[in-house]
């Protein structure tokens, strides 16, 4: 049974790193790379062996509903693969990047805690346990955002902590109401009990959760913390936060709770579509005006989350496929873009697009991979972003949501516009840059190249034969809605 190890390995690594690390970070690097590599292997193994099945792990040898259970189905395995894949490249990027700060070993310990939290949120089948793991991930994230110890980083981390605490309080309130009305914390049991409880409870709790998890995933009215936090964090952490944290804590939790527990009430699907389209358009406009490269990327994350939410809101099989595919794609290209921004920041000492220039000759890997990532996020064929956006737009048209389809198209064009701006000023500008503070190490280059290759390779997932093995089981779990009850409880 591999499920508990998904949580044990990074947690053990975190504490061992604090135990054995001295001033140097060599052991911390070895331990964390080993831990994440084994996690990725476990996640890939579980993804390719799970299929349409659901595996349950009951802690302490007790039985559901007395125990905390871990649930492994196609959706959770899929998310685990994304988290640990991005974590591995992020670690490769971190090795030389993070040495510019003091006590780098602390970074690795916090990084492992961040992964523990996210893996825990994804693997757990218990709603209070989900809250606890979410807090673990968030506290590690607060500390990591402030890791550079500059005033603006502390400010961003503090803002993130305040808003994160508000949303966590809302979520805890929702969990409390659910527990009061169903007398259980196991998600499958809650889903089963809710069918007999007054439907008012579902709507109230769902509204609270929408605000709580909406803040975690930075949907438009709840997004204020994200541009600060994601642009102030060290680049590998920005990529973890933007690439996977908002998805594991936000989108994944929304899918699990709204689809698998509440059975996707129609009014909330409409809300998803409305909030998603607001996020797409408004965040794109805000991104257009940014001159700070990482801030631009952060606003872009909000807009891309909008696409995912729009897909979830449309709710047809095709739309869910698009949303699920976009979760994977966005994790890959947004992490890559943040690595590019980090590499440029390391080399030039600035994030301001106006102070950058022609980097084509001096930083060929960074410029080349950033071009690939840009084409992916802007949705140009044959890169992965094109297919997921196309699926979402086609699904919107098929479901007779023409307005939303048009919004998605406009959002896609705006995405292209602000990324052309980033490319034009940031990487292909007129000024010839001759002075560099630091060279880009092999680890950073290989992290960027791996993700750039994945930007193209993951488009293959759309080929029917491959899709049936990879994305379709995930869509089945989501479309199955409260079939989750049967899958987990076996009745």
């Amino acid at each position: 049974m591999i499920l508990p190890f998904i949580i044990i390995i990074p947690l053990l690594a975190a504490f061992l790193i604090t135990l054995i690390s001295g001033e140097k970070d060599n052991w911390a690097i070895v331990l964390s790379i080993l831990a994440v590599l084994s996690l990725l292997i476990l996640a890939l193994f579980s993804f390719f062996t799970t299929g349409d099945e659901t595996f349950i792990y009951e802690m302490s040898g007790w039985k559901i509903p007395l125990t905390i259970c871990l649930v492994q189905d196609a959706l959770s395995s899929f998310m685990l693969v994304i988290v640990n894949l991005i974590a591995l490249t992020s670690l490769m990027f971190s090795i030389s990047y993070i040495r510019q700060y003091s006590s780098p070993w602390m970074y690795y310990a916090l990084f492992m805690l961040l992964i523990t939290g996210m893996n825990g949120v994804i693997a757990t089948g218990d709603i209070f346990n989900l809250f606890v793991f979410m807090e673990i991930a968030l506290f590690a994230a607060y500390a990591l955002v402030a890791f550079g110890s500059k005033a603006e980083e502390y400010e961003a981390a503090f803002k993130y902590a305040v808003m994160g605490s508000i949303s966590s309080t809302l979520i805890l309130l929702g969990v409390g109401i659910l527990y009061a009305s169903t007398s259980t914390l196991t998600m499958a049991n809650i889903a089963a009990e809710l069918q007999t409880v007054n439907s008012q409870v579902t709507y109230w709790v769902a509204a609270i959760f929408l605000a709580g998890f909406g803040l975690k995933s930075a949907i438009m009215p709840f997004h204020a913390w994200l541009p600060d936090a994601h642009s102030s964090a060290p680049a590998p952490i920005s990529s973890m936060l933007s690439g996977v944290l908002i998805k594991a804590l936000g989108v994944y939790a929304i899918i699990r709770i709204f689809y698998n527990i509440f059975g996707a009430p129609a009014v909330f699907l409409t809300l998803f579509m409305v909030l998603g389209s607001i996020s797409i358009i408004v965040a794109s406009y805000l991104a257009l005006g940014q001159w700070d490269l990482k801030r631009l990327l952060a606003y872009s994350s909000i807009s891309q989350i909008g696409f995912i939410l729009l897909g979830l809101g449309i709710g047809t099989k095709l739309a869910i496929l698009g949303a699920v595919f976009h979760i994977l794609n966005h994790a890959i290209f947004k992490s890559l873009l943040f690595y590019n921004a980090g590499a440029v920041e390391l080399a030039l000492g600035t994030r301001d697009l106006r102070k950058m220039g022609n980097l084509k000759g001096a930083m060929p890997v960074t410029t080349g991979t950033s071009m690939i990532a840009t084409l992916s996020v802007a949705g140009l064929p044959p890169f992965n972003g094109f297919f997921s956006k196309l699926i979402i737009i086609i699904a919107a048209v098929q479901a007779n949501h023409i307005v939303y389809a048009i919004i998605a198209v406009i959002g896609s064009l705006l995405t292209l516009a602000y990324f052309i701006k980033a490319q034009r000023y940031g990487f292909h500008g007129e000024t010839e840059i001759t002075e560099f503070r630091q060279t880009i190490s092999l680890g950073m280059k290989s992290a960027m190249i791996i993700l750039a290759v994945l930007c193209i390779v993951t488009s293959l997932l759309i080929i029917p034969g491959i899709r049936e093995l990879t994305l379709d089981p995930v869509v089945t779990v989501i479309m199955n809605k409260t079939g989750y009850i049967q899958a987990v409880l076996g009745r």
Partner: protein
Amino acid sequence: MKQRDGMTLIVKTVTRISVWLILLYGIYIILHGHLSPGGGFAGGVIIALALLNVMLAYGRQFIDRWVNIGFLHDLESSSAALFLAMGILGMAVGGGFLANFISQGKLFSLLSAGTIPLLNIIISIKVSMGLFVVVWTLSVFHLDKGGKEE
């Protein structure tokens, strides 16, 4: 120890006597965690408070002279690792992560409830050391920001 470190003689004398009582109470709470309200977390907080009491009364320099903070830090990390080890042991012996694999003994006797007292002790180390190191770090942080050592 200079007289101007920490608080007045009255506070120091009271602390010298009361800290042992507080520690004893903390240990009582930890050891009876499986029998009465309390447990590792509550007891750990009480123990941390006893240590903080000393720090407040005698000043941070006193703590720096007598206590190796690095060791407390290691103690904290290793207790967390130990907790995980207990969990994995439960997996190896008794069917699930953190399974209670030791005989549960007689109800309401001090040595009963299998692994739970052990886990309580581990948690208490983690909590007490963690809380103490956090507050100690906060007092050091004050110096970083340009405050003067008194």
